[in-house]
């Protein structure tokens, strides 16, 4: 496999000014402003192979969306080198732009007052898609996303879920090789989130499209991505397989115990951090290195009916990474 995207030492800094609150603050900022640099992306490097489906995760303001915007040519970087499909994105060559698509869950490209089908036709013309190809792609996507009945309804009258499906169709009408998805499931209910995930998975499989996905929902990442890139404060903290996150960052394990008789919660605190306690069940977080010792202590000193040693949830590990707190 060959690299379809390569990013080397990418930096994107913004200059922003701070304004003191109130009227006097506004007057002062009119004459004298304090500027400072926001390091949205700060020396990021990675490569992506063709057909990969990658999760880009991080807290708000981590630099995920800025990275996607640089990769799609919207923003000029402060420094660094980026190659997408062999092109420099910010040159905005039409030949490059015809091969990718950007979907942003919080913004829409569809014409608000017109039926979605009008936006599809416009995109067909813009991307110079032939009539046969347009019809074939549209039919496939409409069937896959089950939106045949709402194609001719004004976009503003569609539900959020229907609108997001239409956004996807508009983005895919030219069959892009690369798909940048920025929080595509944001605001959707769980049923719709699942449908979107199924669609993204199917699209990636069927067309061997490269997909980069940012999301705050770990279910999206867990279900779709084998590889994840964790970014925080503009820097990459982790780049690898999803299950490697546990090995790298999880310094604790969870002991799930079922007691046969009543025990005092206070007594369990000597074993580790009691995360849940509702008789007869308790979940105790202990240091990874001392998990076996803690289990043996429990078995020796408490009336244990059942005991399991488990890895922590990925959500918890990532939360620990971002907050810098040790939950064990």
């Amino acid at each position, binding site marked *: 496999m060959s690299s379809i995207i390569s990013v080397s030492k990418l930096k994107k800094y913004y200059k922003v000014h701070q304004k003191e609150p109130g009227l006097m603050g506004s007057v002062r900022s009119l004459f004298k402003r304090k500027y400072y640099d926001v390091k949205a992306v700060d020396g990021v490097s990675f490569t992506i192979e063709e057909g990969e489906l990658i999760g880009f995760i991080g807290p708000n303001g981590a630099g995920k969306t800025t990275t996607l*915007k640089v990769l799609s*040519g*919207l*923003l000029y970087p402060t420094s660094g080198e980026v190659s997408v499909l062999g092109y420099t994105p910010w040159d905005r060559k*039409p030949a490059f732009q015809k091969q990718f698509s950007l979907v942003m869950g919080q913004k829409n490209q569809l014409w608000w*007052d017109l039926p979605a089908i009008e936006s599809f036709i416009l995109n067909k013309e813009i*991307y110079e898609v032939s009539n046969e190809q347009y019809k074939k792609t549209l039919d496939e996507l409409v069937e896959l996303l089950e939106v045949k009945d709402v194609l001719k309804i004004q976009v503003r009258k569609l539900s959020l879920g229907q609108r997001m499906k239409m956004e996807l169709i508009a983005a895919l009408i030219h069959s892009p090789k690369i798909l940048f998805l*920025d929080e595509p499931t944001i605001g959707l209910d769980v049923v719709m989130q699942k449908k979107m995930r199924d669609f993204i998975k199917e699209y990636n499989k069927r067309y061997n499209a490269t997909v980069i996905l940012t999301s705050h929902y770990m279910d999206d990442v867990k279900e779709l991505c084998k590889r994840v890139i964790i970014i925080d404060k503009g820097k990459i903290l982790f780049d690898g397989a999803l299950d490697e996150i546990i090995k790298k960052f999880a310094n604790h394990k969870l002991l799930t115990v079922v007691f046969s008789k009543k025990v005092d919660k206070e007594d369990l605190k000597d074993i580790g951090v009691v995360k849940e306690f509702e008789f007869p069940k308790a979940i105790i977080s202990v240091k990874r290195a001392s998990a076996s010792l803690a289990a043996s202590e429990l078995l020796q000193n408490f009336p244990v009916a059942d005991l399991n040693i488990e890895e922590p949830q990925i959500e918890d590990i990532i939360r620990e990474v971002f907050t810098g707190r040790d939950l064990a």
Partner: protein
Amino acid sequence: MEFRENFVFWILVQTFYVGLHLLTINIYFSFTDTIAGWTKPEVYLLVGIFRIMEGTFKMLIHPNIVKLPEFINRGDLDFALTKPVNTQFLLGARYQRLDEMATILGGVGVLVYVYSQNLIPFSWYSVLSILPFSFLGLTVMYSLMMFFVTLSVFLTKMSSIWVYWEVLSKSLRLPIDVYTHGSKVFNGILWPFIIVVTLPAQIILGKTSVYFFFLEIIGCIILLWAVNKFWNFALRHYSSASS
């Protein structure tokens, strides 16, 4: 066109405006025979050209340009910038207000009246030349507006741009000589306004040399080129918006 009631109402409002404009001209000329060397039929001709230009501008250009500062401010240029077409063209051709056809037809009506009543001698040259003059005038207006709107990439907010448009559109309703009479300073400041409407009317009426037409063509080409360069330069500094 999606909102039918609004469409019909706007046509009525525009028809009313054309009538009001002519009424104002009639009131001025009830006190005098000429204003800054222009007779009433000549000002009618100017009103006709102005209405056609204003209608075309508001139908094709204004609805797009008016949204640009907000697009830039809110980061809504994002999708346009990923499309494989010239962004200046894409953003300039997104919206059309077909209800402004009423303004254009009002202008055509005034011209039909002027020529049918023989208030100004009819000639095919003068009638047919309205088209290229209007095109060039619109090009000037588009370029100037686009220049100011592009500044919002750097300044983020440029709401004062529309004050310029208001001054421009109000000034054009009368011959520019009314404002610039005897003042070279005003001539210097208001030259774009002169090019847009008064110069075409002056050339049609034989009040000035036809060579200005060729100068206007050269000026338009330079303006369009410069605005396109400025727009592309500004896009390098586009910072989108947080999402």
